C-alpha cells in the first residue's frame, strides 16, 4: 500500500502537501517524515490536502497534531483541506476540528 505525498510549491508562502491513499500506523511514518522535512526546510505554512485520502485513523491524526505543534512553535501553521464526510468525522469525534483550520479547497486555504 503506497501513500502518495505530492508537494506543490506554487502557492507561496504556502506549501501544499497532497496526501493520497490510506493513512494508518503503517503509512503514517512517511507522512511524519515528509512534514519534518518540509519544516526543516523552513516552510512553516503548510496546507495538508486530504481530499485524496481514503482512510485516516488516530495514528494519522497524531502525525498531523505533531506537525501542527512543530510549525506553531516556529510561528507557522498547518492547515487542512477536507470535504469528505468520513474523514471529517474523525476530526469531529476527537474534537480536533477546534484545533485545525479545515478548508473546503486548496484555493480557500491559500486565499489569505
Amino acid at each position, binding site marked *: *500500500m503506497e501513500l502518495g505525498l505530492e508537494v506543490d510549491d506554487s502557492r507561496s508562502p504556502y506549501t501544499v502537501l497532497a496526501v493520497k491513499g*490510506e493513512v*494508518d*500506523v*503503517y503509512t503514517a511514518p512517511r507522512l511524519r517524515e515528509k512534514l519534518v522535512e518540509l519544516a526543516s526546510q523552513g516552510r512553516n505554512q503548510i496546507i495538508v490536502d486530504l481530499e485524496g485520502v481514503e*482512510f485516516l*485513523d*488516530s*495514528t494519522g*491524526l*497524531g*502525525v498531523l*497534531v*505533531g506537525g*501542527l*505543534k512543530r510549525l*506553531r512553535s516556529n510561528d507557522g501553521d498547518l492547515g487542512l483541506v477536507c470535504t469528505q*464526510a*468520513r474523514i471529517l*468525522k*474523525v476530526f469531529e*469525534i*476527537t*474534537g*480536533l476540528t*477546534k*484545533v485545525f483550520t479545515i478548508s473546503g479547497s486548496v484555493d480557500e486555504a491559500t486565499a489569505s
Partner: protein
Amino acid sequence: MIVALELAVPASPEYIAIVRLVVSSLASGRRNLADQRIDDLKLAVSEACTNAIEAHGRRGTDEPVTVRVLEADERMEVEIVDHGGGFDPDRLPLHPPVTDPSRLDFERGLGIPLIRTLVDLARFERLADGTKVRMVVFGGPADDAGDQTSEIIRAVLADGE
C-alpha cells in the same frame, strides 16, 4: 453466535490494511448496514489492531494477533485478541481539552475513545497475557447475504479450507 471468519494476523503494521478490507467486505456483503456504519466499524477495527500490534511490538512477542468475526441475527461482532501484556482501559491518561495549547503535546491515546464512540458496544477484557477487544454493531443480515460476498472474502475463506 456463529464464527464467520477467524484470521491469525502477523503482528506487523502492514497487515492492518488487509484486516480492514476483510472485515469491511464481510460487513458490507453479509450485513444490512449503512455504508457509514461500515466505515465506523472499519476505523474501530483499525484502531484495535494498531493497539494490538504495538503491544506485541513492545513485548517483543512474535505471536499473531487473532481477528474473529462473529454473526448473530441482530448483530455482528469483531474480536481482536492480542498477547501484548494487557492494559487497564479505565486508567488511560486523559487529554487536556482541545482548547488548551498543551493538547498538542498528545499525539496518541485517541484510539480507545474512538472505538467506544464508533461501535454500538465495545468491551475490553483483560486476558492472562493480553487483551480481547469486542466490538459490536447491531444490524440484521443482508437480504441477499452470500450472493454479495465479495471476491476477496471468497478467496480468504477458500484459503482457510
